[in-house]
């Protein structure tokens, strides 16, 4: 197995593109190294992205905040602009593992690991985040919900990595929130995760909403019906009931020791309702 630590994105892309066999980029390694060790993965090449300075940036751009692929969660969660503008995304990345895991893990790694239960992804989907993909054929911008395609699979092509994620700036009176459900108080895999972002007009009517739902299907879902349930309403009880029903309807989870199918379906709705209330309160303050 080869292990390379390039200093630039271009070098990383070249290494990944030219290598044969199984190749992996590695950011924090908190997913990859664990899989490596349990024998599920035996790569021929690992390309460490953490040494690429350009990937460590968090920069304010005209249309949003750009977060580099090597930024550890711990750092993102101390970034004042990120916390103020994207509390839902920060809530989600702040839930990944423990302090000890957050010192290394990245939001982009969480996305590219393509686990249906990944915490940051429903929040990123709700925030309308855009991944910047760099590869041998140049750069393209892709909505995050199009990155994971199946558990453990992404739409990235050979030689491509995600360089950064853009969190688009929100209109006034917008708010977002992320809630997840786990059986233990911390350090556990989501049974259900819900990210909600919504925007109100001056009269308090919801004009836009996005709902990301995790751990209840093979990939994180962008639930259009759930957004429709909120748009045009004052996010009152009736709208919340419709939201919950839409989320439960969208959920097609599996039975496992963390929760039965019926339970997960029900919790998807309950949690969505609670997340929407938090997002609403935030929108009302912004």
């Amino acid at each position: 197995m080869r292990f390379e630590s390039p200093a630039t994105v271009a070098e990383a892309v070249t290494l990944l593109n030219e290598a044969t066999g199984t190749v992996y980029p590695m950011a924090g390694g908190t997913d990859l190294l664990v899989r490596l060790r349990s024998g599920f993965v035996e790569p021929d090449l690992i390309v460490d992205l953490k040494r690429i300075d350009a990937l460590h940036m968090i920069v304010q751009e005209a249309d949003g905040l750009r977060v580099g692929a090597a930024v550890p969660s711990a750092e993102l969660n101390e970034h004042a602009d990120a916390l103020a503008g994207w509390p839902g995304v920060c809530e989600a990345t702040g839930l990944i593992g423990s302090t000890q895991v957050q010192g290394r893990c990245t939001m982009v790694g969480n996305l590219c690991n393509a686990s249906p239960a990944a915490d940051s992804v429903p929040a990123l989907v709700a925030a309308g985040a855009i991944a910047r993909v760099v590869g041998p054929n140049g750069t393209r911008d892709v909505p995050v919900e199009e990155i994971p395609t199946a558990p453990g699979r992404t739409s990235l092509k050979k030689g491509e990595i995600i360089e950064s994620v853009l969190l688009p700036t929100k209109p006034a009176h917008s708010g977002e929130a992320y809630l997840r459900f786990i059986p233990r108080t911390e350090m556990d895999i989501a049974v259900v995760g819900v990210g909600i972002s919504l925007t109100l007009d001056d009269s308090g009517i919801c004009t836009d909403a996005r709902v990301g739902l995790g751990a209840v299907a093979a990939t994180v879902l962008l639930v259009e019906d759930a957004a429709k349930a909120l748009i045009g309403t004052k996010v009152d009880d009736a709208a919340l009931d419709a939201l919950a029903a839409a989320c439960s309807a969208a959920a097609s989870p599996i039975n496992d020791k963390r929760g039965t199918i019926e339970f997960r379906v029900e919790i998807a709705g309950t949690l969505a309702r609670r997340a929407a209330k938090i997002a609403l309160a935030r929108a009302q303050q912004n």
Partner: protein
Amino acid sequence: MALTDIDHQPGISFSLNGKPVRVDGPPSERLSYALRERAGTRDVKVGCDAGDCGACTILIDGNPVCACTTALGQVDGAVIETQAGLFAADPIAKDLAASFQRHQAAQCGICTPGMMVSAVALLRDRSKPDQAAVEDALGGVLCRCTGYRKIIDAVMDCGGTTANPVGGVGTPMARVDGLPKVSGTERFADDVAAEGTLVLRLVRCPHHRAGFELGDLDAYKLRTGLDLILTVADVPGDNRFGVIPGFEDQPIFADGETRFKGEAVAAVVGSADIVNALDLTEFPVTYTPLPHALLPKDAAGIGDMHKGRDGNVMCRGFVKRGDASAALQSAAVVAEGSFSTGFIEHGYIEPEAAVARRVGDRIEVQCCTQAPVMNQDGIAILMGLPKESVRIIPTAVGGGFGSKLDLTAQPYVALAAWVLNKPVRVTYSRIESISTSTKRHPSEITMRIGADADGTIVGAEFDGIFNTGAYASWGPTVANRVPIHASGPYKTPNYLARSAGIHTNTAPSGAFRGFGVPQSALAQEPLYDDLADALGIDRLEFRRRNALRNGDPTVTGQVFETGMGIVECFDVLEPHWKRALADAATANAKGGTVRRGVGIAGGWYGCGNTSLSNPSTIRAGITLDGHVVLHQGAMDIGQGANTVIAQIFATALGVPVDGIDIVGPDTDVTPDAGKTSASRQTFVTGNAARLCGEAMRARILRLANVSGDAEISVGDGAIRVRDDGGERLFPLDTLTPDNATYVLESVESYDPPTLPLDENGQGVPYAVFGTTAQIAELEVDLELGTVKLLKITAAHDVGKAINPLLVEGQVQGGVAQGIGLALMEEFLPGRTENLHDYLIPTVGDVPPIETLIVESGDEHGPYGAKGLGEHCLIPTAPAILNAIKHASGARVAHLPATPDRVRAAILAQTQSPSAKN
């Protein structure tokens, strides 16, 4: 191929604890391994290799991270600090170490490096963090011993100055063996092998049950470059081990057929780099899966796994007193129900490990164990050697809780080292540890209890089926103990209890804090709530009314004239109970989906072996130069035997405890203090220590010809004796020495008095019972089914608290395990074999725990002390279930009470109005 790649990679350079180092290893290697095995920092612990336990936490450029999820290649140029380095160089770490000592925040100490390193990072950031910040910083580090609260206290009190008192019986002194644990120098079983020691790994069967054939082992050995392959053919002695006489049924290597998933069929031995890189799925063995049973109900259909155990029934237990069926028929109210619990994994953070070396015709094994002499016996039989040829030198033990009583890793390295005449080491991976070590028995219990109209229990019937797994281990103990305890600490004049241990194709069930008693309490205590509710009697009052008092016969007809302390436990809880109920009522009056509940439960536990001799021996001596040396063979697995036994001995001899040198367990130099289990060490070994101290004191007083209350001091080559008549000096070199080591030596034994049980289970099974009652306060989110614990209040009759600080530690640790049992833990073979699927409580799951110590004394115990270890968790889970019922109206009878089950129970109860009361 991997090796050639390494060759052209340069070494990785970084700063390690202030010194520049260069480490040669594959850059994708986990940093935890490289630091331990290549850079020698063995204070970095490995509990899971998957980011789940935090034991490997180090600082990289000041940030706490898991070394096991970091690649060596990623730290080129980094600054790395570990516990030992921090302790040596950082004043914050030194203060923190002192605070850990004061608060007894380290029990076994295996989690301590991760805890301290994480806390140092926090304390560097802010010197007085609040509790939430501490919990956040420690959230990724698991501790199975302490229940976390003392660790939180220690971090928040870092820099504090109050010193613990030092003294004998009754003094809350810090552990005598604490410093290595808080300074990074403690050595556990995986920490003692010399560099270059050969490594052993086990080839384990992936099926629940299978026949198998081995292929061409010689060719495999040659191709892979191994030094040795071991299979059943290489076992020189009798290929079976066990812990109960007559039930030695477990082979170290399966012989033609495996009986549970993970059973070993072979071992490979070679250099670390070769053995660790092997893909053992390529090992030449072909399996033929056989019909298997994972549940007792299916066990009769798969053929007998052990000769003479018809229908795979290992054994049964039985206790009968009066006429239970008649009493239940005439009872005013009867509560009944079916209850079940699953396999519970011990989840110590230190996986099983051992290293062995051959010394002439003897074999020496260093290992983490709770029972060195039993290990010695077992290895001698497996290897066909006389017992004297086996020496067990225990290392520090990173948690045991019952599972490190049985042999696990030891025989393999003993055999390999014997054959190769070279040292050999083995360490189980977390997955091996969870999938093959013994478990708490799953239980299926039905119980009926009846009371008369004024709330007096008239009778109870109990039937318990226990899944004992593929081999007996401690299964017979569970089958015997449960019927004796299933009444709870309550007067039950008419009683019938039956138990059965059934073999299935799972890891063996063995000893785990309580030997089946926590499971039976999970049936009896909820039913007590049902009876109290049906009769309209307060739940605490109902229990107190029925609690055993001095002079009352237990269900085996045993009568204690003194020391039955359960009534006092309820008495001291009463004000807390009233306060908690009032708080809950106030909170619930506000309405909402989150409801508060309060639950109570009692428990009892007989200390020591059931109706069997279980002696302990303590040896002590005074050297020529005036050192008092205590040979203390009771394994300290974190519970504090080293400290407690020393305190008892010091008090008996009448010398300061900090002047005593302790020689730990080593089968060559320290006599047998029995096993650390069944809450017996303080009581049994403590009594031996008392007798030994008293005997030595008597000899000295005789020497000086003075009265009993003279003061003794030893030191500077002399013994001084002082009384009203002044001081007399006895230079040790003027006395005729007892032997070459000691001028004065005493060796004393103690065996608790018990009597055999008759055919109805009547008799005197234990010399002493410890009793306890606990209150759980919690909130249930009715919509989500989640349970948030608010407080546990634990009353414990310990007879006499030898060390109140250690008592609190035991209670809090036991309560935390009870929380896991109640709310989240369940081992499912093949499914929950690591610490992210098998969940144990984290710091956020354990609420404040208030310990109320009751001292009712004891007829036999040293200074009136009883044992404590097991009792702590018995009432916790039932108190939690009773509180869930109080909060939500829903009874969860099948554990763990995970949110989906709680929610389902809430839905079921709202849907069926008949079940509402």
